[in-house]
């Protein structure tokens, strides 16, 4: 009997049922879309902020500014505790030499580095490391170096030497010379414009420092610094140290990579790290508030729509009471309807919200998103809870009123 009544109530009032269904589905869609993207947005924003460049610098630990690190230690960076946070790294080897192009000659800095190097580390997925990965703001007029004798020259240096892509430069260091072809000219507005960049192996040979690098820049995802993170690790208890080490502060990630490279000292590049921390905190704060706002308004919308529909149906309730139904039977009918509509609405809303989250993620970040598994039951459950909460009050009120008053109009 209950089923027959429920079935009829759906089929006899299609428009009203549809509108309630729409209301619930849309509310659930907003909630799903938001919860689905909230966590991902934070991660994607953090990745976006990595475009500002490296936030950790690894130098030789010797205090006089000389000294070198070992190139063979570099792959170990991909195996440290925080390896999944490290989005890229680049080694540099510096030397000063005479750079000549035709008749002009200049003293300048020659840097050996990786541009776009494929790195395969045993036990880890292959990755690409180099300047192209950690410094996406480099504007190269021409091409990136492909061969061992190609180089990229900074724009200011190029202008003074009259070098263009295709020019051949002579590079002389301590009596050793090498001819390099300019593959591209790089503009950055920074100190790179005064340097000549060539593949690491080429410069190592030129400077007779095979297997050595001067410094390494590392780009890592970190969490914003807080008071705990700012404590001096040397003064921490064992538990505190473990907690610090296992939180991705820029200082602890730096310590971690320092351990990977022998004889090194790693320090955060605070210009990047502190601005990033502050910005991420604020972006996450905004997203959190917007999520609360969206969830709150969708809950309000759904519950008011249930309230409205229940209020409209007081004559029906009064009639049922008048012909002898008791409160539980009436409650069963109406809550049963609410249950069915809200489950259907919740499912539809979830699917819709999932799509919306995907659209937002693709448009803004060009990457896909996978809604977490717990979202499905949560969406349905909350749609149900909100719908029932919305129906309870008017239902109780309607049940308490005398049928005569309602039926009279």
């Amino acid at each position, binding site marked *: 009997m209950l089923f027959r009544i429920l079935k009829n109530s759906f089929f006899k009032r299609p*428009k*009203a049922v549809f*509108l309630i269904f*729409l*209301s*619930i589905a*849309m*509310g659930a*869609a*907003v909630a799903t879309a938001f919860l689905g993207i909230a966590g991902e947005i934070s991660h994607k924003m953090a990745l*976006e902020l990595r*475009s*500002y*460049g490296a936030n950790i*610098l690894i130098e030789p630990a010797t*205090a*006089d*500014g000389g000294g070198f690190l070992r190139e063979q230690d570099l792959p170990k960076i991909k195996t440290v505790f925080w390896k999944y946070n490290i989005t890229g790294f680049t080694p540099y080897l510096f030397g*000063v030499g005479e750079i000549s192009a035709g008749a002009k000659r200049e003293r*300048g*800095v020659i840097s050996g580095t990786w541009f776009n190097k494929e790195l395969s580390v045993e036990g880890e997925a292959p990755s690409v490391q180099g300047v192209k990965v950690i*410094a*996406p*703001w480099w*504007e190269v007029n021409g091409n990136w170096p492909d061969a061992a004798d190609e180089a990229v020259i900074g724009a200011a240096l190029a202008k003074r030497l009259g070098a263009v892509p295709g020019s051949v430069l002579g590079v002389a260091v301590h009596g050793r010379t090498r001819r390099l072809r300019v593959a591209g000219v790089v503009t*950055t*507005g*920074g*100190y790179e*414009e005064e340097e000549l960049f060539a593949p690491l192996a080429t410069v190592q040979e030129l400077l007779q420092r095979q297997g050595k690098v001067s*410094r390494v820049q590392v780009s890592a995802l970190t969490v914003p610094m807080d008071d705990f993170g700012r404590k001096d690790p040397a003064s921490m208890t064992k538990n505190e140290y473990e907690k610090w080490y296992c939180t991705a502060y820029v200082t602890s990630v730096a310590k971690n990579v320092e351990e990977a490279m022998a004889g090194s000292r790693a320090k955060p*590049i*605070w*210009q*990047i790290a*502190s*601005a990033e921390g*502050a*910005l991420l905190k*604020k972006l996450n*704060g*905004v997203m959190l*508030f*917007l999520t609360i*706002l*969206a969830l709150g*308004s*969708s809950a*309000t*919308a759904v519950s008011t*729509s249930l*309230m*409205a*529909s229940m*209020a*409209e149906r007081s004559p029906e309730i009064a009639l049922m009471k008048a012909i002898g139904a008791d409160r539980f039977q009436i409650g069963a009918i109406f809550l049963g309807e609410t249950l069915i509509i809200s489950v259907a609405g919740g499912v539809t809303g979830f699917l819709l919200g999932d799509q*919306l989250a995907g659209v*937002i993620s693709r448009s*803004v*970040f060009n990457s896909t998103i996978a809604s977490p598994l717990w979202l499905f039951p949560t969406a349905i459950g909350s749609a149900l809870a909100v719908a029932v909460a919305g129906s309870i009050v008017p239902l109780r009120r309607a049940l308490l009123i005398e049928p005569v008053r309602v039926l009279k109009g």
Partner: protein
Amino acid sequence: MTRRRWLVHLIYRALVYRRGRTLLLLSVLAMASSLATALGLVSYSMERRVAEEVRKYGANLVLVPEAAHLDVGSGGLNFGVVSEPSYLRQDQVESALAAGGIKAERSFHLRGALQWKNLDLMVEGVNFADIRRLFPWWQLKGGWPGASEAVVGSDLATRLKIAPGSALELSAPAGPMTLRVSGVVSTGGEEDNLLFLALPELQKALGLPGELSQVRLMVTAGGGALKRDASSLKKLLPAARVSEVRQTARTSEGLLAKVKLLMLLVTVVVLVSAGCSVAGTMSATVLERSKEIGLMKAMGGTRLGVMSIFCGEAAMLGLVGGGAGYILGTAIAQFITETVFSASAEFVPWFAGVSFSVSLFLALAGSLGPMTSVFTLDPVRSLRGE
């Protein structure tokens, strides 16, 4: 009574009679329009707030003398000065900035070398008040310097064993000078290898009054302000090379564009969904008014007359809901901006228009059902109860 007064009277009585329903509709409309207002205001000010935040990354526009090589002591390398230095005149720079109407934050720098115990120390002259404001990433141990005081970079301090509080006897082209070290700064960048003192003091010590090696500007990101300022500076200061610091400038432009797009999409998604939800609610509420419509038509009400009653009701609800929504939405936006950015949201009066139009649109959309039935309803049938 005139027709118009009747109309208002009818609308008012209709709304008051079903008080519960009216309050429900008002709260729904207020909620929807407050959501629209709050989201709109947050999105609107987001771009500007984030643009202010990214200033913490440092300068995005740099002025150096045209003939200068950037010191090889920059970028954290320490090879000393590779070539003859050249300078910009401070007064020329200041007048160019004023003439170009450039309001960007700026800092002036002078690089040079002073001797200490037969060693060449790279020194930079800065305005410490500017540094405190514009270079928030300086990690300073000790105190900010006063007159005849200096700040030492951490690597330099370790290498030369200089501690805060010690006095440095330096010899400069203008004569010997003594500086007390007030603090040690570490940044992970080139500052770690430099000695900093007040700009005028260094200018005097090097015998270069009013000269600068570099001017760093923080132009507000977004909106093409950078390109504009760069080109006007190029014209006004032919002796300078104006470079965009791509590391900060380009990345900030990209970031701002993404933030803007994200906020836009989020706002659209939430508003469309909330709007559908609310329209559904409203339609469900006003669905069954056929009896009223039938009665009015039977009494001689024209279609236009009945329509105007419904439109009037919707307009009333829309206006009141929109007003309440604007106030609530502004309060929410203000709360969010204060809490997250510690700045107040801009007061944007024309957002009231947005709020009202959202509210009116939803109210009318909700009344669409009864309004269409005005045309199709047969009074006899509805009065009979079908």
